[in-house]
């Protein structure tokens, strides 16, 4: 199964004094994500962005 890479959120660093509690495991391959969803029963969130990542 293809796994997405874990990248930090695009907003940059967490506010001072607050630890990031989660890293969103963004995928880049839509069809691989859809196949994973069909197998696992989890929904898919597609984030279309033009912001620099």
């Amino acid at each position, binding site marked *: 199964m293809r796994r997405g890479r874990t990248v930090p959120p695009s907003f940059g660093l967490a506010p001072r004094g607050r630890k990031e509690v989660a890293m969103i495991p963004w995928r880049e391959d839509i069809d691989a994500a859809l196949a994973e969803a069909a197998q696992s029963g989890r*929904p898919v969130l597609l984030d279309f962005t033009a912001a620099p990542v």
Partner: protein
Amino acid sequence: MYPDPRVERLVSESFIPVRIQVRTNPAPMERFNVNWTPTIIVLGPDGKEHHRIEGYLDAGDFLAQLTLGLGHIAFARKEYERAEKLFAEVLERFPETEAAPEAQYWQGVARYRATNDPAHLGATARAFHDKYTDTSWAKKASVWA
């Protein structure tokens, strides 16, 4: 884009998240009829679209919209009790968001579907007399009164 740990947690735990950077990968925009960014689309496990968010939202509104999307997926899968709980969660945690009146409407529909008791639709219509009165969802529910 998600500087809120609650958002990161919900996205990580409840979804398979896919980021499409449209500057370098524009092709999926046509596939999913996306004309602007940011656009968030919630797909069910079957790949069908159940919810769409266009434009930036603050964390509370965004969490409410994502929870609403999960509710719509549960409803489409005929998981009416789960759907009702998710819509109720929107109302309880995010009562001041734009998602709340929609959640109130669909909570009533889910309860009706779960029980086959149309009295729940009437109760939902009456609930709109007290809150979210001037919303399109109140108008839609008014036929049940």
